[in-house]
């Protein structure tokens, strides 16, 4: 079982996660809708989760998967708070466009 899993080099997982992570970063950079940006961040976290799970399996160590749970917890909490903030802003500005909010500056 483990052998068959490990027939895939761990490198593949690392690269896959990296690519997904960078796609998330890319999304953060090019999107203006705060909700989509938040989703991209979720994608980044998922890339991390995937890698953690892979490491966990390869290392036969449960800590990695435990960490994934905690990340999920945090992601959920962040999503709740973040969406709350977005709603609050939307109420005031009728928009979720992040580039409209640039009144605080030097």
């Amino acid at each position: 079982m483990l052998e068959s899993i490990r027939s895939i080099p761990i490198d593949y997982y690392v690269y896959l996660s990296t690519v997904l992570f960078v796609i998330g970063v890319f999304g953060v950079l090019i999107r203006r809708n705060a909700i989509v940006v938040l989703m991209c961040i979720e994608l980044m976290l998922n890339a991390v989760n995937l890698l953690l799970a892979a490491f966990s399996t390869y290392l036969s160590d449960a800590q990695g998967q435990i960490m994934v749970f905690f990340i999920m917890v945090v992601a959920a909490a962040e999503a709740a708070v973040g969406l709350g903030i977005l709603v609050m802003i939307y109420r005031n500005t009728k928009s979720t466009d992040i580039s409209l909010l640039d009144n605080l500056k030097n």
Partner: protein
Amino acid sequence: MVLPIFLTLAAISILTALLMVLSKNPVHSVLYLILTFFAIAGQYILLNAQFLAVVHIIVYAGAIMVLFLFVLMLLNLSKETEPQKSAMWKLSGGIAAGMLLVTLVGALRGGIEVTIPENASGKVGLVENLGMVLFTDFVVPFEIAGILFLAAMVGAVLVGKRDLQV
């Protein structure tokens, strides 16, 4: 046998992730992201982390993404209202992200070493095993996560509720 599955799932996840990022309609983005999550769940199963896969689907696809979708609907955001960045800006974002990818991959290349223990078992991802670890060594963070939730809850209420005094 495993490798083709992995590659397929990887391709799906990357493709849907890209579509999520590039799609003009935020609702589509949500849906693409859910697809990505499913692909990732597939990877979890492939890694023999079934419990994780289930939780993943429930929490992400089931809860978080629904929350996103719900907010999108609530705010009535769609393709028409979706603000778009200029091509120039997208290009520079692409270049930045691309360079990050290049540097990351370049740095990692050839340097990925995982020390595989002798007495490894494939069972780490099973509920029993995870539960043991979670409620012994990791019981403190588990409890601490409670504080986090409480704080997040209070916070969400604070920003969300209408001000009574006014």
